[in-house]
């Protein structure tokens, strides 16, 4: 009976099974947007430039999801911790007086010890609450962000270009990076086709930087420690039986995730050109989580290709809908579509049955 049913299954059904229905809908919608873009009068090259740009800002943050998913710690809703260490690194590098590309390097260097410290504490905590990571992670993120809100006001920063204008005490909620690390990566080896009349700009440096990190991550996952991480994620009991120190591997994955989160926000800032403080780090979580899930990752399985596909699809959706849909129906529904898609994706992923968890 079941065999004949399987035979009756259409090719479309098979595609849905392997590719996942939500992912199929989103891909279809994005293709539709790309087809509609020239018809509605928006320039396709500009749209592609926007999508690639947004991809280069966000990809590292999405990559930060991978180590924790691999080691079975679930979706990293605690990414604000990484973002906070990145913010500390960035602001301290500026405070120390670095400018230009040097400030970018120093931002990463300074944020590293914070990421190891925060990630270590966070990882030790997650090791004590196996099975309930995601909910705790969400609230660890929230409480650390609100704690740092107090800290941004209390830490005695002095640099006049980042502290509040009138009082001189506490950091501004947003400041420009023009004289610091804005566009240091994206302007590197930039390919600009504007002289030939095509509005296509490719931020090669940012893409290369992401490619480097993605390659390192891929290589790491194929080392002995990386394989152990995958084993811990897919079957912790088996991993323990084969002599892997489960807690240590999980701790390592959380530190790695946090550190990548720190680098991710610095790369995001260099593309965006501004630093956003106070409650802003909370807004970095959902796009990253949704992107990796749209890319085909599940709660305990993720690969580099998931990251790339997911970021392209999600950022494509975010950048294309405002222009194309607005031109089509003269109403801006892009924000609502973004909310429904990203959160719906997470809900969908949470309701899927997963093995190896528990």
């Amino acid at each position, binding site marked *: 009976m079941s065999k004949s049913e399987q035979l009756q299954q259409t090719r479309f059904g098979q595609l849905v099974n392997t590719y996942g229905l939500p992912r199929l809908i989103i891909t279809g919608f994005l293709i539709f947007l790309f087809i509609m873009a020239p018809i509605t009068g928006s320039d396709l090259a500009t749209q592609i430039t926007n999508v690639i740009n947004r991809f280069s800002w966000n990809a590292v943050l999405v990559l930060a999801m991978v180590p924790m998913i691999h080691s079975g710690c679930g979706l990293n809703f605690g990414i604000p911790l990484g973002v906070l260490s990145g913010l500390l690194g960035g602001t301290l590098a500026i405070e120390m007086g670095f400018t230009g590309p040097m400030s970018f390097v120093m931002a990463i260097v300074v944020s590293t010890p914070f990421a190891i410290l925060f990630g270590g504490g966070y990882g030790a905590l997650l090791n004590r609450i196996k*099975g*309930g990571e995601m909910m705790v992670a969400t609230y660890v993120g929230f409480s650390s962000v*609100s*704690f740092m809100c107090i800290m941004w006001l209390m830490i005695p920063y002095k640099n006049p270009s980042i502290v509040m204008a009138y009082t001189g005490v506490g950091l501004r909620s947003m400041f420009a990076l023009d004289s610091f690390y804005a566009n240091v990566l994206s302007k590197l080896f930039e390919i600009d086709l504007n002289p030939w009349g095509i509005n296509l700009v490719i931020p090669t440096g940012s893409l290369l930087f992401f490619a480097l990190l993605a390659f390192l991550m891929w290589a790491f996952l194929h080392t002995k420690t990386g394989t152990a991480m995958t084993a811990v994620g897919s079957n912790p009991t088996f991993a323990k039986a084969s002599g892997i120190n489960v807690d240590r591997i999980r701790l390592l994955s959380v530190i790695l995730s946090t550190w990548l989160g720190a680098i991710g926000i610095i790369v995001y800032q260099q593309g965006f050109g501004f630093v956003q403080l106070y409650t802003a780090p909370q807004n970095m979580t959902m796009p990253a989580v949704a992107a990796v899930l749209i890319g085909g990752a599940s709660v305990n399985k993720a690969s580099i290709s998931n990251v790339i596909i997911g970021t392209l699809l999600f950022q494509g959706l975010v950048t294309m809908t405002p222009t194309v849909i607005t031109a089509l129906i003269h109403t801006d529904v892009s924000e609502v579509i973004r909310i429904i898609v990203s959160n719906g994706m997470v809900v969908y992923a*949470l309701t899927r049955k997963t093995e190896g968890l528990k």
Partner: protein
Amino acid sequence: MSSNKNTPLGQRNLESMHNYATPLGRRILELVRNYAVPIMFIIICAVCIPLSGFSTSYLLNEIITRMGRNIFLILSLLIPIMSGMGLNFGMTLGAMAGQIALIFVTDWQIWGIPGVVLAMILSVPLSALLGLMCGKLMNMAKGREMILGYMMNYFVGGLYQLVVLYFMASIIPIKHASIRLPRGFGIRTTVNLTNMRQCLDNELAIFYNGVKIPVLNFIIIAVLCLFIVWFRRTKLGQDMRAVGQDMDVAQAAGINVDRTRIISIIISTVFAGFGQIIYLQNIGNFPTYTAHSQIGMFCIAALLVGGASVEKASIGNVFLGVILFHTMFIVAPKAGVAITGDAMIGEYFRVFVSYGVITMALIMYEIKKRRARSQGGELLALAQKEGGAAS
């Protein structure tokens, strides 16, 4: 120890053994540990109240008003906790249903208590539908109910925005231009409930030394409390407690676990809808697109401050929690100014404390769950060893 062999291996058994063995000093320590959060809050309030410099009657008035408007919402959290589904972060769904009902009632210009009652009736089918959806999804994600409920907030929040911002007045008829956006469809960012403002609070209100006591609100709350107490004793309530204790055992005993869980979420969502209507009629207007977003967080924080945990909460926790949490909320900004000279620090501090309390409660719950599991395993191993030695 051999007498232990035939008793069921459960948490209760462990605890009772524990209590007999511990001396008084350790038992006090245990008490302090169990009520760490309320004690901490009492200390915070004791420090902050004199610093804030508010008069007693002002403070009392504020706290009683806030009790009247918040307790109903917080009580809606109790039933899912009873059925072992943890803190119902999805209560926001009910709040959204309540808001949609209020928008319709405002458009039809039905004011005062009839308006409130009509809004409550209108909100029921919507909340029940959303609760059903939420419950079904939660059954698909057993063990991850809380994070799912939390994500449902945002997902359904998106749908709410779609309906209210784009469908209302374009597909769904809205008569009055005063609540429509100038562009012709969608609802304005603030819905004004001036003619409904505090209609429940003022009915039967008693003034005593400048403190206003909204008697009708408290009567409604008392009715809900009685309902919860009664509900716990019904067949369904007993089923829910059984499901909360152990789903597998409940299933084996012939309880339809999935159905029971869905019902408990539906009840919670419907009550949350009522609660939001009571809350908003007190405030007198609401920001259409953000009124629901923080409600879940504050209600859960207040419940936890009252000494509840993820698996255990009582009506007493709700009352204590509201008093302590809102006292902190009222005095923190002013006390922050007195201590640091910066109003924003007090503001951020109270947000930090509410998040921090939830974080601590979740961590403590997960650690306790793990410890209980490993203790259960140890006890089982011990029993097996003894059984082996006897034979």
